[in-house]
């Protein structure tokens, strides 16, 4: 559709103007031009919005004259999946990226009310520069509106693994996160350009970083939940290169929101924060690149075209390289006051947290790229997978959890004294004793990994309780506590819940892999499963079989795993049945039949696995609370 292409072309020129005009106006001191900043951003947003709506329209209408629609959709596909197929392939996902970038830009313009236009203009200029780059990519190598070379009767259908509610929310949320960090990036570069980065600037920057972080957390949590329901055999994290690609900006973003706190309170770590903001966005871009270039083997394979990889690398070099050049030239202009930092202060703890997170980022990046590095250097091929990451990540996780709990005992502007040391030892001992007792009570064996993991999670929980109790003793109301420390309490509690979920489900899961005939029974972890019948299955674009399994001989508790065959793409997938519960999940997968009445099935008992995602949600709530409570505090500046 030439019309939609023209929309994108128009948006591209607007993006160039959105970047150029603010910078020119500030350079030439023609401040009147700044009034164009907001209209330019809005018009670019509208054009891109129209473009993506037209793409959705084309999908809904089953117009297979477009190559992208023909590759990713089919007339038998339910309508909501047809809309989601917009971002099911490469070209549409880049259009979604640009759309979300413009969404964030408009949000910044509308919501950032306390910032002067001159300063805001620089932020918007950087965002325009990024948008122009991606629009150029769309216009040259990733046109979602290109026409198909051969006419087809019907499309190739969406990958069956993507035909799941997870597709509706996971990519948009992830992109909101990835792209949201471009706002922090823009603030950082704008700070360098304006020569100013103080408490106030950090207070402007932090809510945007928090918002992006919340979205990215939600995106990763929904991705993990989706994988659990669809892909793996009860797995929720595989250290797959593309999962790592989403974890890396998340880790950097976490470090960023913590160190922005230090800048806000004490104006320290400015250089580090600027670098970190650039790094976070760089990791988002590298992640985007890795998924689409085909250089690493992953379950998320987008259609691969080496030229696209080349373009994206160039985009990465231009965006990050420019930012780092500006950094090299302008960083010394930022004022750095001298402040006393005690080794046993909260600031020091936050620095430790940043050090740990940075090393973890380095480790995950190294592990993900190591096979590539070894191959490029000519040393053959090796794999780096889950066993490596689990082994190396664990000690860092232990240290991070320990320092997290420690921070509760050391408030701002207070140093550690003998009293606090005593408290630390006491709470540490109680957490590990409680962990010991709980393990003895509920399981038969003592595993030291569970002891440590549970102990650390309890360390955080008990610290939270002691903070609440100490605040009550000081006659502080609950409302007051939540206003000042609520975000930290909720978010860190989320981490503790997540840790409990991970530890307990990893060490206490049980599995049975069996062949069953109709009428057979199997028992696992005290539950009895009986295979009642296997029925034929017919869906809108698939056929297959569904097994009816009765749990514990109850007349209302059934599990119905499915085996689906999608004829258009010639793919067979197994859709597990899950009995969800707060304390445990029962998970059943149906695999191929062996003979006429016998089927292979896998049964899983997964205790506390839901806590993983509940912990994630709790973290998001904490982040949201941090944004909202910022809003109240902001008026003080």
């Amino acid at each position, binding site marked *: 559709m030439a019309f939609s292409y023209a929309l994108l072309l128009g948006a591209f020129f607007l993006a160039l103007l959105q970047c150029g005009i603010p910078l020119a106006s500030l350079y030439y001191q023609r401040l009147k031009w700044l009034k164009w900043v907001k209209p330019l951003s809005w018009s670019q947003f509208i054009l891109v919005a129209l473009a993506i709506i037209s793409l959705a329209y084309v999908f809904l209408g089953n117009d297979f004259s477009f190559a992208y629609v023909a590759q990713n959709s089919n007339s038998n596909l339910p309508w909501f999946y047809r809309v989601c197929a917009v971002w099911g392939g490469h070209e549409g996902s880049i259009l979604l990226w640009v759309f979300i970038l413009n969404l964030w830009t408009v949000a910044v313009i509308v919501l950032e009310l306390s910032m002067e236009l001159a300063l805001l203009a620089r932020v918007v200029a950087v965002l325009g520069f990024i948008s122009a780059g991606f629009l150029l990519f769309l216009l040259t190598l990733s046109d979602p509106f290109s026409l198909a070379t051969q006419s087809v009767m019907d499309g190739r259908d969406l990958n069956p693994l993507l035909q799941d509610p997870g597709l509706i929310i996971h990519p948009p949320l992830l992109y909101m996160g990835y792209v949201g960090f471009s706002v922090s990036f823009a603030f950082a570069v704008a700070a360098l350009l304006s020569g100013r980065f103080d408490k106030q600037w950090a207070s402007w920057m932090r809510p945007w970083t928090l918002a992006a972080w919340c979205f990215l957390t939600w995106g990763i949590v929904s991705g993990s939940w989706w994988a659990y329901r669809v892909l*793996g*055999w009860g*797995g929720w994290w*595989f250290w*797959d290169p593309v999962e790592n690609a989403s974890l890396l900006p998340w880790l950097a973003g976490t470090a960023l929101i913590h160190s922005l706190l230090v800048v806000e309170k004490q104006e320290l770590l400015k250089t580090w924060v600027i670098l970190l903001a650039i790094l976070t966005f760089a990791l988002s871009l590298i992640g985007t690149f890795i998924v689409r270039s085909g250089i690493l*083997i*992953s*379950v998320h394979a987008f259609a691969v075209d080496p030229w696209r990889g080349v373009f994206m690398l160039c985009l990465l070099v231009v965006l990050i390289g420019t930012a780092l050049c500006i950094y090299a030239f302008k960083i010394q202009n930022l004022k750095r006051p*001298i402040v*006393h*930092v*005690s*080794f046993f202060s909260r600031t*020091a703890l936050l*620095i*430790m947290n940043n*050090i*740990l997170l*940075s*090393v*973890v980022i*380095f*480790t995950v990046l*190294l*592990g993900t790229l*190591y096979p590539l590095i*070894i191959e490029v250097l000519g*040393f*053959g*091929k*090796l*794999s*780096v*997978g*889950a*066993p*490596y990451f689990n082994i*190396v990540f664990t*000690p*860092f996780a232990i240290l991070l959890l320990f320092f997290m709990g420690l921070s509760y005992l050391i408030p701002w502007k207070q140093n550690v004294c003998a009293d606090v040391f005593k408290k630390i030892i006491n709470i540490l001992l109680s957490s590990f004793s409680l962990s010991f007792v709980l393990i003895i009570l509920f399981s038969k064996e003592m595993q030291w990994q569970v002891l440590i993991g549970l102990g650390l999670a309890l360390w955080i929980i008990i610290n939270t309780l002691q903070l609440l109790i100490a605040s009550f003793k000081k006659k502080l109301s609950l409302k007051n506590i939540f206003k000042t420390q609520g975000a930290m309490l909720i978010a860190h509690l989320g981490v503790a819940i997540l840790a409990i979920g991970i530890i307990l489900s990893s060490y206490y899961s049980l*599995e*049975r*892999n*069996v*062949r*069953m*005939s109709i*009428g*057979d*029974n*199997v028992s696992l972890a005290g539950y009895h499963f009986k*295979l009642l019948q296997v029925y034929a299955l017919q869906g809108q674009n698939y056929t297959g079989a569904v097994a009816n399994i009765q749990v514990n001989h109850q007349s209302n508790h059934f599990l119905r795993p499915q085996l689906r065959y999608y004829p258009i793409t010639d793919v067979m997938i*197994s859709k597990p049945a899950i009995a969800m519960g707060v304390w445990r999940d029962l998970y059943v997968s149906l*695999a*191929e039949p062996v003979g006429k009445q016998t089927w*292979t*099935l896998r049964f899983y008992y997964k205790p506390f696995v839901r806590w993983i995602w509940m912990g994630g949600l709790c973290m998001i709530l904490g982040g949201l609370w941090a944004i909202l409570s910022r809003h109240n505090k902001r008026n003080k500046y």
Partner: protein
Amino acid sequence: MLYSKKFLILFSLSGILGFIIFFSPLALSESSELYVFNSTQKKSQFEEIIHEMRCLVCQNQNLADSNALLAKDLRLMIYRRIRNGESTYQIRNYLISRYGDFITFRPPFSHLTYYLWLSPFILLLIIFFIFLLKMKKFNNDL
């Protein structure tokens, strides 16, 4: 009396028969385990190996999760070797000798991978010491 005796015999016979049927293994037909081991240690050894090895057909999955033909063959081969008493080390070596380091998700600890395994910890120590030195310098300056 004869009548009641017959009745008694019939009753007891049916009771015994019922007893046999009720408690016999045929009553609750059990499913058959796909891979049977005679010790839990061997079972966990099996689980560990198949989770650590990459499926070479569906290369983003491990041998435990993959449904590919080669994955099934490799699982069967590993199962037989464990039953024969081979150690994890021997089985890993065999697979690596046939398919290269690529097949194992746990990279070996060799001269190629020292950097991979050790750099996180060395980096942490280096940065931590730099931090300590800077703190000392900071506080001495004041």
